[in-house]
């Protein structure tokens, strides 16, 4: 198979790859954002020892 032909997507490369790039950014971004959220949350929860709620 010809890779140049494959990546050109019959002239629709921008639209096809653009769609999948957006999908990758959104899905990947969601996972990364959640990991970050959990990380900062874990630090916060662990620092305010057991039984005591945080001062807000």
């Amino acid at each position: 198979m010809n890779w140049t032909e494959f990546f050109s997507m019959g002239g629709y490369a921008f639209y096809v790859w653009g769609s999948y790039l957006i999908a990758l950014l959104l899905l990947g971004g969601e996972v990364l954002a959640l990991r970050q959220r959990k990380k900062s949350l874990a630090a916060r929860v662990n620092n305010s020892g057991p039984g005591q709620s945080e001062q807000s």
Partner: protein
Amino acid sequence: MKINWYKYASPANFYRVAGKLVLVFGVPAAILFMLGLYVGFFVAPTDFQQGDAYRIIFIHVPAAWMGMMLYILMATYAGIGWAFNARLASMMATAISPTGAMFTFLSLATGSLWGKPTWGTWWVWDARMTSTLILLFLYIGFISLQASIDDPRRADRAGAVLALVGVINVPIIYFSVQWWNTLHQGATIRLLNKPTMAPPMLAAMFIMLGACWLYSVAVVLLRLRCIILEREHEAGRPILMNTKGVQLSRVELT
């Protein structure tokens, strides 16, 4: 073996279970995404009318379906949480909403990228697209309404009202291509009719749909864990975790 299911209705217990389930769903999701893309790009033939532009369908249609199905799921959980005063169900609704909004946005964005080369326009105000945009606004409305109310249970109830009223929009999206004369094409997959697509195209689409479902379950559970942790902590019922932030136990606490 007898399992006490009520045990898992407690956020603290569910937290532990959810942690194990994230990988159970996340890993198969990644495998199915790769398989779906392989079938979609290397097995499915080029469309005789649209050329290769049609390959956007493998992400566009699953994203659109997820947007609608996650909304129904979110409204169901919100309704259960409201009717039965079940905290965990309400938290589930909150956990679903950003993922539903993300998929709805993805369906609009990929639809736009598909519309430009095939219809000659990025956007038209036809019934299908307008009702999908309303779905996105409903998600955003749900999220911002909940964020604007400090008391979590009041936020849950307010969100439930909005989510349940908005459910009416889902059948409108689904039947919009039949009820109105839209630029958007009609359904390719119908329950009782034979699909009008080549089998490999259909297969790729359903594999991608399966991947999106598994992905959604994994991500929603991940978010649900954060929500449980935040809420229980702020309510003075902290769930203790080890230093890595992974393991937790209520027993360690008391």
